[in-house]
């Protein structure tokens, strides 16, 4: 990683324009040295950075797979995987409980952590760029709590059905996330366009309302249901079986690609809306796309992981320092890093007090918080 940090320092282009919330409307900031359009990002650097991150992610995945209720060494790991690949289910059965633990419990969970972390980080990047606010992330804007409310209602009424290859819980969570975004959108477009600060405030207020409703739903549940619900609210990765994982992965990937395609527009948006419009960006369309994609991604993610804060806020900032503020690199790099971070955090959550698990949301905050404060105070990381 040190190598990459050195590489990017020579680039210099950094510090996305982030204004603290002020009561005034659109303050047209003078364009700073923010990367614009197509310059400054050589394809080689893009490729190198992402390859390095992908390699690191694979390495972390292999390390995380070794830890859990029982330690499984690397050699054993490879032996089981090769058996499973070669002989399928029969090969897996021959390895006994260890094989089942590795291939059907641990691997899905680590992969899920990667997917969830990646999505939260990418969505965080998108929202921060869109709102030009360093605090924006799906958690703060009420999208997560909207999704949690949907999921909570599904649990409360014991909904168990499937539609479109998704079971009731993720569907309700997505509906909740969408509802939250729709409401924010409606509030903010009362003037016919989307003022950024109104959007942010509406999101924060909605977050408070939805959180209160989630608390209410939890309080009227039967004791052991509310037990599960509380636990889930603190962040718990529940990996479905492989076919469902595949559906989820396809869905998330599609959403991420939609986000990635907005990268160039997001670069211009960081200059301020007026400038972006002048440069030919369909500002309202971009906002809508990023906003609703974020909601749909967050809903799906929340349904399998509960409320995991911090990843969506911290990872984008950390990556901006590392890769610069060009969204064409920042978005995929943050996705990889977010995945990596959550894999590591979840492994700690699984093993620290084994056989008892602690909520992964606790770990992400405790591990990420101090680091974030360090970033804020170090001279290198003037974030806002």
């Amino acid at each position: 990683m040190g190598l990459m940090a050195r590489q990017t320092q020579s680039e210099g282009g950094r510090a996305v324009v982030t204004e603290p919330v002020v009561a005034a409307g659109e303050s047209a900031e003078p364009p700073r040295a923010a990367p614009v359009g197509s310059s400054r990002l050589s394809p080689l650097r893009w490729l190198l950075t992402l390859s390095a991150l992908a390699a690191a992610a694979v390495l972390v995945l292999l390390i995380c797979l070794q830890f859990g209720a029982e330690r499984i060494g690397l050699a054993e790991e490879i032996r089981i995987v090769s058996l499973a690949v070669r002989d399928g289910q029969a090969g897996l059965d021959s390895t006994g409980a260890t094989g089942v633990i590795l291939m059907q419990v641990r691997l899905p969970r680590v992969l899920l952590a990667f997917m969830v972390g990646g999505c939260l980080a990418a969505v965080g990047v998108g929202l921060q760029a869109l709102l030009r606010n360093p605090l924006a992330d799906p958690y703060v804007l009420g999208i997560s709590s909207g999704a949690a409310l949907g999921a909570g209602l599904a649990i409360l009424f014991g909904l168990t059905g499937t539609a479109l290859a998704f079971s009731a819980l993720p569907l309700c969570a997505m509906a909740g996330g969408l509802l939250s975004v729709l409401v924010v959108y409606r509030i903010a477009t009362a003037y016919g366009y989307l003022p950024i600060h109104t959007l942010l405030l509406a999101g924060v207020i909605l977050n408070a309302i939805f959180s209160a409703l989630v608390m209410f739903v939890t309080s009227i549940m039967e004791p052991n249901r509310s037990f599960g619900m509380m636990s889930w609210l603190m962040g718990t990765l529940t990996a479905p079986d492989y076919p469902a994982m595949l559906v989820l992965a396809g869905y998330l990937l599609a959403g991420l690609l939609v986000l990635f395609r907005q990268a160039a527009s997001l670069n211009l948006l960081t200059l301020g809306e007026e400038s972006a419009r002048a440069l030919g960006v369909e500002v309202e369309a971009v906002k809508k796309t990023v906003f609703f994609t974020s909601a749909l991604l967050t809903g799906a993610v929340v349904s399998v992981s509960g409320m995991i804060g911090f990843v969506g806020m911290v990872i984008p900032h950390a990556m901006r320092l590392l890769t610069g503020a060009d969204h064409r690199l920042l978005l995929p790099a943050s996705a990889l890093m977010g995945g990596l971070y959550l894999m590591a955090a979840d492994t700690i959550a699984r093993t620290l007090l084994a056989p008892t698990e602690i909520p992964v949301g606790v770990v992400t905050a405790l591990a990420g918080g101090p680091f974030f404060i360090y970033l804020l105070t170090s001279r290198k990381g003037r974030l806002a």
Partner: protein
Amino acid sequence: MALKRRQQGILTGMPFMANLASRTFVDDLGRKLYLAKPPIRVVSLAPSMTEILYSLGLDEEIVGVTDYCDYPPQARAKPKVGYSNPNLESIVALRPDLVLAPSTFLRADVLAKLEQLKIPTFILEAKAIEEIPSHVQTIGRMMDRAPAGDRVATEMRRQIAAIRTKVGERPRLRVLYVLNSQPLITVGPGSFIHQMIELAGGVNVAGRALVPYPRLSLEEVLREDPEVLIFPVGGAESVPESEQQQWRRWTTLSAVKHQRFHQIAADLLNRPGPRIAQGLEALARIIHPEAFDQRSGP
């Protein structure tokens, strides 16, 4: 503990003091409570206590219960005062001369307020199943129903002892008690049900957990390989059928191989009251069906 059939009455908590019938009682927090005369307006803050009061033949005297007090059926008709967050005003409005409360759900501020209002509050916390018959006797003496309390307690002790004798020598089976599947929450050491499982001839696979209600990792479950899965059903705590079926995915588990999925009435297990012996028997019948004759269980 195998009790021969002796005369009842010897089994009172303090036989040598039975005729003195002291009116001072000490609760499980060590707080002393002096009752000049038997209370006639009692508020119960736990389903188990409500059941104890009814088992002593009381009914008129019970003036307030929790939202979850549903046994015996006539308890449902009593005024409700909430549960984990009892409504202090409705308690006071019932003008109780005794409040029976569990330690688990009584918040310190509620207790302080009751003390401030001079409402006698008696706190019971059964850490072990053996303490429950004594609780019944204590409340019996408080309410001037000592003979009834002794009778109920004796019968409970007899039943518990009988179950212990039945399963005592049998090989113990590994048990997983599923409170909630996703995330998996079960019972650990320090919880009441953990103790019941061990008494009924089982070994709790979450025995190494650090907390009474741990979130157990699935990896640990597969490693410990439970032979019996138990799902609480009915009343306030129920694991739906669809959730139970999810467990069939784990084909390496002994419990899945041998189709050992069982349901148990949750209320019988998690209420430290007069029906606890029935709960223990139900549990023992699930874990060791071969130890019981084929009559239908409780």
